[in-house]
């Protein structure tokens, strides 16, 4: 026991170090060439001289373009990692993810609708949240009505709700004017941080971080909830409040991520599995590990997406390219049970 606890600390530490190094590398990569040493120098001396300064433009690129994007990628991955692990825990199903049960497409529809009506802003997240919750509630109701315990029914209900909201998204696209809004909605839906800015960071971080950190701090409750409603009551704990808190917080997180980064699938599904391989199924350890792995995964995908070709490759494409094979391997290895 003592040994694994040390291992866990080591793994977390290692993830932190890798995350830090990747962040630095990511900051120095991009269309505007900035050597690593300049990157470090600028980060240590963020206030610089005027246009005459040799690092004038690199400083602006780094601090005003790449840094907000880095922060959004890290916090987005952090939030999706935590939410994904929490979802699989409380729904007691390794195949469940915010995407599978329709939260992501629900939030995507809400956000798209808000962008169509108001343009990007606070309402994007608010609408995302509203329809994310609606999608989740619908999936849950359908599953409960037909067969409360069945994992299959839950996933199938999710598929139905997903398809419905995908159609609603298509409706929004149909209604959007083809010159200005349609391309931006389509591009945003494919998943991209290319429009990252301090304003977006300032609007989404206060949602993502407190939600995720709150989820992290109640992680012993996730262990309990993973036993299923009756057993939780059998242990003398009322599952309703923590369950409601968990669902609201995960949906808040997901809709905030969706509102800035579009529909980024797979992260919430894959990251908890990878983390479980690293630190085991105990949510006390899984959640922090999932948060770091999620941040690492998101940052890696975004960095690849913006450097591999002259044009930003949408995140949705890359996560699927990486996620689908990983998931197939997990599925075969675990034969549908929890991957270990």
């Amino acid at each position: 026991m003592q040994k694994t606890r040390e291992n866990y600390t080591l793994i977390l530490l290692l993830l932190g170090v890798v995350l830090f190094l990747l962040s630095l590398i990511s900051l120095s990569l991009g269309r505007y060439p900035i050597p690593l040493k300049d990157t470090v120098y600028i980060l240590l001396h963020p206030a610089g001289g005027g246009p005459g300064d040799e690092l004038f433009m690199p400083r602006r690129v780094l601090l005003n373009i790449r840094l907000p994007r880095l922060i959004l990628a890290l916090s987005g991955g952090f939030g999706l990692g935590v939410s994904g692990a929490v979802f699989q825990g409380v729904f007691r199903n390794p195949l469940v993810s915010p995407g599978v049960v329709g939260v992501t497409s629900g939030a995507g529809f809400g956000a798209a609708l808000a962008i169509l009506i108001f343009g990007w802003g606070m309402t994007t997240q608010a609408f995302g949240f509203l329809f994310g919750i609606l999608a989740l509630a619908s999936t849950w109701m359908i599953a409960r009505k037909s067969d409360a315990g069945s994992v299959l029914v839950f996933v199938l209900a999710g598929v139905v709700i997903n398809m419905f909201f995908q159609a609603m998204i298509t409706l929004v696209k149909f209604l959007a004017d083809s010159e200005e809004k349609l391309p931006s909605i389509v591009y945003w839906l494919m998943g991209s941080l290319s429009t990252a800015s301090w304003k977006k960071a300032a609007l989404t971080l206060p949602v993502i971080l407190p939600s995720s950190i709150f989820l992290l701090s109640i992680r012993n409750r996730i262990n309990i909830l993973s036993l299923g409603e009756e057993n939780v009551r059998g242990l003398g704990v009322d599952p309703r409040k923590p369950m409601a808190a968990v669902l609201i917080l995960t949906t808040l997180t997901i809709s905030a991520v969706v509102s800035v980064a579009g529909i980024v699938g797979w992260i919430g599904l894959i990251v908890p599995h990878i983390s479980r391989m690293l630190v085991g199924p105990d949510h006390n350890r899984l959640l922090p590990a999932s948060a770091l792995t999620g941040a690492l995964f998101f940052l890696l995908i975004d960095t690849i997406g913006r450097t591999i070709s002259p044009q930003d490759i949408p995140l949705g494409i890359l996560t699927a390219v990486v996620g689908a094979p990983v998931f197939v391997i997990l599925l075969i290895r675990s034969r549908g049970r929890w991957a270990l």
Partner: protein
Amino acid sequence: MKFRYLIGFIALWIATPLLFASGAQESAVEEEQSLTITDDRGESVKIDLPVQRIATFPLPHPHIIAAVDGDLDRVVGASSMSVSAAEISVLGKMYPSFLNADSSYLDGQSLNLEELVRINPDVFFTDKVLEGMEMLDASGVPSVYMGLKQETISYGEGTSTVYSPKETMRDWVSYTAEVLDKNESNAMEISEIWSETEEEIMSVIENVPLAERPKVLILFKTKALLAAGDGTFGHYWIARTGGINAAEDLKGKHPAMIKMGSFEDIMHWNPDIIYLSNFENTMPSDLFENSIDGQDWSGIKAVREGRVYRIPLGIYRWYPPSLDGPLMLKWMAQKNYPDLFDYHMEEEIREYFREYHYYDLTDQEIRDILNPASSGNL
């Protein structure tokens, strides 16, 4: 029974020559009243004359029709974006009826066939090969495809093949004049003036070493990061006014705009001069005030030095093919080289409109051309 057959036979016998005769008569009429032209698809398109109702798809086409025909009465259908441009230009004042042209058959970039057939045009012009065009021909709406023209021009130390606003304009004037059976000479004169203006400007710029030429960026849509890359209309304007296209590395197929990777590209190019198209509502002040979310303009040289300009809107939007091409050349050459060109643009515009559009502009109208209003429908 037999008697009935006999009657029928006789009737047929009498009727047959009549049928033939009337057929012959009709084809004779057709020869007089129809026109067959070969369009850019290579299709022979037969158009019944006289053409009274015109529907058109290319955004700059209505103002060309107006110049060729001397009126816009015959245009019953046009893109809503052509109409919205006319609302904020003198074209709408010159031909108010055009503001009522039907746009319903164009939803976005696609064509609603039934709507088009419903407004029943005698001819339909398009610059894109649209899905269902052969159905249009079958439905009795002859459609003329007039593509965009390219030309190879000198650029930097070599040459560059671009979508040519000048050649496209010339080509569309020909098609329009042919279909409307009009004399094209007046409109064609513009193409000659255009070439002369090109030569006039190039003769001055020839003497400027390549290293001293300004790095110019034309933004088609700023927020969407669409710029005038290599081969676009914008590349033509930059090349013909002695600039170096900051976005020359952007390759693509679109005639007007190519998407850049990210805002970092602009920071990397750091252009000396930025032109904003009037196809969007972003204004130079948005860049000077650095008020666009997710974009940091404050460090860009053009912004620091106050050299951000919005492209004017004359008889039609400047930048795509338009009859104001020579004016665009002079305006942009002067912005690129304020020391080398001493055009008085207000007077140039006034003269040009009087000469070629037969319209006396007021001072306010000239100011509006140089500072086009924002428009809701872009």
